[in-house]
């Protein structure tokens, strides 16, 4: 269950006034979540550590831009983390297209084999009941987009499925998550 966002909102407001104690508390609340997400997306520990640092430095610098209208603090921070991680993933992918060979075994293992990536995610994810109830086809497209940073066109190419099918699966998956969320909230 997500923590009450009220405290985090007030902490961000204090961080906007350069309050380092509030920043420290905010870090304690969200660093594990950001690091976990970074590890899942980037797969290389040192990259995940760098991303964590970049995200919280950005939070420090841009706290004054946050407002509750932009969503919960968690959604705001996760959005910063995902945007940065996706930028890194796509930049690595572009680089690998230019250089066929890579001398980084961790990277080589991580980016090209989506099937193994999906298998890894199976192993790494402690599925809660909501996610486990999602049909495999829907869960897969959501994971490829959300964690592996693939666009809809790239997913369609990888899975050799029509773009329309991929879009439908994404939307159906999100709708199911939304329905489950509504049920949980009651």
């Amino acid at each position, binding site marked *: 269950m*997500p923590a*009450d966002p*009220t*405290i985090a909102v*007030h*902490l961000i*407001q204090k961080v906007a006034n*350069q309050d*380092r104690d509030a*920043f*420290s*508390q905010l*870090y*304690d*609340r969200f*660093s*594990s*979540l*950001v*690091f*976990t*997400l970074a*590890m*899942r997306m980037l797969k290389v520990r040192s990259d*995940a*550590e760098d991303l*964590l*640092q970049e995200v*919280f*430095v950005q939070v*420090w*610098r841009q706290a004054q831009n946050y407002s509750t209208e*932009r*969503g919960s603090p*968690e*959604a705001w921070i*996760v*959005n910063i983390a*995902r*945007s940065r991680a996706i930028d890194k993933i796509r930049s690595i992918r572009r680089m690998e297209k230019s250089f066929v060979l890579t001398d980084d075994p961790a990277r080589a293992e991580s980016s090209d084999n989506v099937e193994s990536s999906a298998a890894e995610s199976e192993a*790494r*994810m402690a599925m*809660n009941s*909501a*996610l486990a109830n999602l049909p495999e086809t829907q869960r897969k497209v*959501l994971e490829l*987009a*959300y*964690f592996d*940073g693939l*666009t*809809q*066109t790239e997913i369609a190419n990888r899975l050799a499925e029509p773009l329309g099918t991929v*879009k439908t699966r*994404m*939307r159906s998956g*999100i709708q199911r*998550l*939304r329905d489950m*969320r509504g049920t949980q909230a009651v």
Partner: protein
Amino acid sequence: MATGHEHWHERGEIYALGALDGQELKEFEAHLASGCPICEAYLRETRETLAVLHRSLRPEAPPLAIKSRILDQIAPQAIVRPRQEKTPWLNWNWWGLGIGAIATAAVALVLIANLTRTQNELEKAKAQLAAAQIESAQKDELLQLLSSQDVRLVELKGLEAAPAAKAKLFWNPGARSGILLINGLPKTPTDKAYELWGIAGTEPVPAGVFRVDDQGQARFRMPVLGQGKNFDKFAVTLEPAAGVEKPSGPMVLLGSL
């Protein structure tokens, strides 16, 4: 939902996933930039829905050293406030002014002084309100944690280095987090901090650093600890301010589940 926005919602959902591309991405970003409140709200709601994805991952705690690296990087900066414009009347030649102008200036000065005082009082009240809101929210959070069926109470007793100290940890094994309430610890030295440890068998796992106030009290919300360890004890040691990966200082509190 018949808002005439269905095609934007389709794109918004895929955009929230980070998967929209090509012309559709350009069009949707242009639409968002036009300030459509319906799509902004829908995007926000979709992002909250997608949170179930990252919350489903097995939590991993980052190395402690990263926090001090970040704190070093965000060196304190003075808050830049808009500079008050020099009011032209300060440059006037007062000798050339009549008594009426002097009286007007005096009234203006009084008004400015009052305004400044009111602004200061407003800032102070805002700060007090924010502090009260944080305190209230922290109490709510404590109540929420205490009312959870999973929560376990761990009583930590003061050891030789701090015999008068005691603490209660409300540990939620499902959430892998908890709140520690501390009493009677010696004041934290400037270059030190107290560090909480979860102990699985004989292996200590860092669970965050905190300081106590002048009365030796603190309420500390621990970060979410990584999976894979079954903690049966919790302890507090005195360590360097940034915290350490392995305990090196004296143990001041210890308690078992």
